[in-house]
């Protein structure tokens, strides 16, 4: 039975897995779990991932959640080119370092930026105080600075001369505030250059395809009120 991936390309980690699988020619069956329709809260999906989050993977009887774990699983199982997760001890450690760091920092502030700027007003119909948005964008800027000064520095990609899992996870994270209309590259010229390099290596067509949903996020239809009730507590927990 072919590998199954449960994704919503609205989600940053889902985009990373989508791009990685497609780029490496890994055959998979895509199951779209529409977050804005609350499909992740269904009993059917709970069978795949009791934590009720995307992305989730099913490889015959083996289910797996957490995008970093899924990316590493695919890397080991499908024997992808070395640069994605180098054998070299120190280069590999650098990828691990980024993948660990991003959870509570860049991922979180990109998520908050999108929700405070777009999803709360447009999708949930809730106003966000301007001070809250300003604080969120300031925090995003701090994390973008760390991405640039600590991780990227003067290298072509985050870990060295070649693209790795770290770049894939980072680029899909910054697409969140980009989709939300935030000026991510203002004051971060090195990141702008890195973005174009990653887009080129991934391939413009695949990159566009993976980002189609997030780039249209400002056109989200307002949420159904019953769904709003169900998702609200989880949203608040997610962006705290």
């Amino acid at each position: 039975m072919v590998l199954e991936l449960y994704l919503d390309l609205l989600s940053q980690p889902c985009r990373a897995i989508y791009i990685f699988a497609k780029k490496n020619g890994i055959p998979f069956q895509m199951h779209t779990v529409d977050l804005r329709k609350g499909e992740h809260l269904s009993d059917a999906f709970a069978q795949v991932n009791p934590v009720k989050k995307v992305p989730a993977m099913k490889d015959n009887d083996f289910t797996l959640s957490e995008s970093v774990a899924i990316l590493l699983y695919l890397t080991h199982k499908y024997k992808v080119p070395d640069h994605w997760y180098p054998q070299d001890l120190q280069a590999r450690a650098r990828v691990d370092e980024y993948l660990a760091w991003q959870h509570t920092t860049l991922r979180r502030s990109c998520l908050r930026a999108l929700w405070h700027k777009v999803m709360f007003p447009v999708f949930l119909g809730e106003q966000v105080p301007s001070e809250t948005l300003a604080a969120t964008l300031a925090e995003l800027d701090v994390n973008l600075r760390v991405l640039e000064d600590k991780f990227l520095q003067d290298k072509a990609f985050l870990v060295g001369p070649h693209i790795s899992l770290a770049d894939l996870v980072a680029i899909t994270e910054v697409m969140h505030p980009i989709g939300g209309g935030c000026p991510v590259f203002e004051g971060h010229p090195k990141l702008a250059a890195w973005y174009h390099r990653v887009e080129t290596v991934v391939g413009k067509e695949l990159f566009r395809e993976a980002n189609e949903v997030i780039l249209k996020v400002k056109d989200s239809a307002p949420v159904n009120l019953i769904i709003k009730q169900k998702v609200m507590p989880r949203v608040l927990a997610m962006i705290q």
Partner: protein
Amino acid sequence: MGLELYMDLLSAPCRAVYIFAKKNGIPFDFQFVDLLKGHHHSKEYVEINPLRKVPSLRDGKFILCESVAILYYLCRKYSAPSHWYPPDLHMRARVDEFMAWQHTAIQLPMNKILWIKLLIPTITGEEVPAEKMEQAMDEVKRNLQQFEEKFLQDKMFITGDHISLADLVALVEMMQPMGSDHNVFNSAKLAEWRMRVELAIGSALFWEAHDRLVKLPSWDFSTLDPTIKIRMSEFLKKYK
């Protein structure tokens, strides 16, 4: 110059690295970065880790942060017994899955208990509203339940019959509230697993690593440097 580990055992990620290195006979210089004296903000340490966090590893010219990355690096470089990070695809994926999930699901909520119960009242002199404490406790309870149902299940350890990095990281993080005399090991299953992990590590090493933490409630906070006090108050503000 040999391997250097920059740590303060008040921090759970530091304890994981300390225990792993000691258990596997990995020789290292313990560079004490006293968090209570604000040493993580010192000029010397900021040169090692500009993010001002512990643990950090220095191996010759190579500097690495993020405990998960450090644990994987040590595992590989020193060829630790394979049960710590199993080569089996599915077992390894479970470890990766836990290591990704724990950042937000275990580490942060466990720290919040310590901050709310001890550090905020002692350092800022203000009590935290009971509601916030309840919220923090509920989150811990929910996530521990998820830990039992999804990761532990009816096994001895997370990957099955042997301790792995996942059990080590899980336990040191769940010990964090002990720094405020709070014990989260309320279910029989969790308490039994805790004991198994302690015994697999070795009780002497386990309690040696936790000595500074369990003595925290009786630490004389009046000796806290005023600058450190201000810094910590700033940091703790958002959890009040």
